């Protein structure tokens, strides 16, 4: 009983908030959800309350516009198409004698179809987040990791790790200079003691 219920009212499922929320019923919906905050009683109300709480806990930024959604859909379709070409070159075989490419072919077709589905629903999609200036922080964080992996093979993990920790503490985390320097050096010493001295993991190291 419960599973059937869940299937029909999958939290933000297709029939859920996306479709209904966009309709003129929005106000009605909102009224119903505020009462649900005080007393979530049925499973369905509870699910809604849960989703609001999750969104609130994560301080979700505003939803992305249809352009972002279309780009995502296009990327999915492109991925499917590329995989399709790849599977065809692997040899498709037949149902009687499936080849290397049979299963990837089925999957890539599925991805293309699902991607087209995303494109069709792009306008009513509300679960993607808008990228903002703070998304640049993520790029900066990513850059430190790329530097880490690029250097670790040649100069060992100590210097890249200290650099990474320092950038994350001082610039991404907004901690003070002194704390950042001390923390990042301390961290490297701790990691050295644990991984190199105690566990003798063969991680590339300078000292």
């Amino acid at each position: 009983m419960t599973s059937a219920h869940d299937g029909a009212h999958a939290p933000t499922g297709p029939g859920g908030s996306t479709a209904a929320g966009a309709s003129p019923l929005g106000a009605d919906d909102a009224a119903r959800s505020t009462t649900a905050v005080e007393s979530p009683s049925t499973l369905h109300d509870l699910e809604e309350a849960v989703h609001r709480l999750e969104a609130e806990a994560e301080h979700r930024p505003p939803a992305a516009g249809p352009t972002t959604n279309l780009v995502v859909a296009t990327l999915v379709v492109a991925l499917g198409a590329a995989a399709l070409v790849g599977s065809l070159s692997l040899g498709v075989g037949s149902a009687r004698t499936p080849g290397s490419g049979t299963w990837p072919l089925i999957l890539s077709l599925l991805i293309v179809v699902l991607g087209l589905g995303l494109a069709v629903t792009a306008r009513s999609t509300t679960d993607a987040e808008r990228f903002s200036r703070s998304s640049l922080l993520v790029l900066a964080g990513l850059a430190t990791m790329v530097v880490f992996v690029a250097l670790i093979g040649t100069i060992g993990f100590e210097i890249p790790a200290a650099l990474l920790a320092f950038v994350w503490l001082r610039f991404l985390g907004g901690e003070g200079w002194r704390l950042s320097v001390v923390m990042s050096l301390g961290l490297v010493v701790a990691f050295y003691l644990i991984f190199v001295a105690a566990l003798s993991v063969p991680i590339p190291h300078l000292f």
Partner: protein
Amino acid sequence: MDTLAVDIAPVLDGFTVVLEPTNLLYCLIGVTVGMLVGVLPGLGPAATIAILLPITIGIEPVTAIIMLSGIFYGAQYGGTITSVLLKLPGEASSVVTVFDGHALSRQGRAGTALGIAAIGSFVGGTVSIVALSFLAPVVASFALDFGPPEYTALALLGILLVSTISSGSRLKALVAASIGLLLATVGRDAFTGGERFTFGNLNLADGLDFVPIAMGLFGLGEILYNLEERHTAAQAPMKVANVWPSRRDLRQSSGAIGRGSVLGFVLGILPGGGATLASLAAYAVEKRRSKTPERFGNGAVEGVAGPETANNAAATSSFIPLLTLGIPANATMAVIFGALLVIGVSPGPQLVTEEPELFWGVINSMYIGNILLLIMSIPLVGLFVKILRVRPAILAPITVLITLIGVYTVNNSVFDIVLVIVFGVLGYLMKKLGFDPGPLLLAFVLGVLLEESLRRSLLIFDGNAAEFFTRPISGTLLVVFLLVALLPLIGKAFARRRSAEQQNDTTKELV
């Protein structure tokens, strides 16, 4: 009859193994580390276990499993701590705990909420493990006859159910699952030996490794996502005073704990969001049964006890499909599945009969993990509260370095660090764009099994796919598959009609 009776000897042997001091020590370390990482805001059990995977590698299998189960229970409880103290649920299944748990902590009774949650989790977990000890061998003996067609159907159904019940859009969950299946095809084709999608890269010839994918998608992805200013909103956790619940609290919640155990066990066996559904259902049941439902949401102890018991019972019983069929029921189980494979245990129906000491080792380690959790959580709550006071800005680089260095230690490969970063970015983008990474990982884990079973079945059936429906078990499973796939479409049509009618009603009223 012989197959149904549980042979006691291997069970007891399993206990003697688990109770060895080294193993107990590793279990203790597992519980502690699991809780330590689990209380980090934003890191749910799947992420916690993924980040900690490397520490279980290189240890003897049984010990590693025991440590893993410690991590599992610790990570589960870590989410509860943040729900109660910070209103930040670690994963969907501890969200309902926030309603009454956080209300209790605002009244200065955070200790009570955490204490009752620990006791409830312990009881729920234990009831579930006992039931599992009896049920799992039976299911496994039933599944021994499964052939490729049954596994094809089972894997398909499992992936679909997880995608259906995952948080977020179903369409996106299916996209994620399909990409996961596609990623599983990378590497050498087991049938022909030909390389697929390796782009000539030697590192890809053996296929993508599970560990960097799990650590990237759940661990790094989550940390990158949290970089976007969200962490500035971190609040100081409430003070935790008396952790021991009073006799009155215990009396009040004993019914809830009992009902939660049963509900959790039953719902947890279902694939998909077992634990989430169980905690929601337990909360609804307690509220419905209560003579004073208005207390719920304002700090009712039963409102914490019920869901917390149920989600732990469900988390435990979701080990049944994993251990007996080799099919993980949710994202956390997919991570455990991967971890077991790395350790050298392949879960499936043969596990009970062929490697009983490993099978019972897994199950008995759960008893120990659960007991240690109860012993550790209550006195150590104060310590974890202190960790919550450490600024996320300081914890983030530590977690990143643990992940980057940790993933290297698994295979001593720099390429794995590259992979974990790539999947970290993918995990971030997925989270940002509303794709649940759970179905991707689950599908990736099941991908090889699914493809091999499908190709074997087609060979058996001589290319006639309709024969899937002529075998009773695979036929039934596929019919269920179709129902699950089509029901939401029907439901959607109904909902649209109903909302149209409602709209008519409201316009009439307005007129």
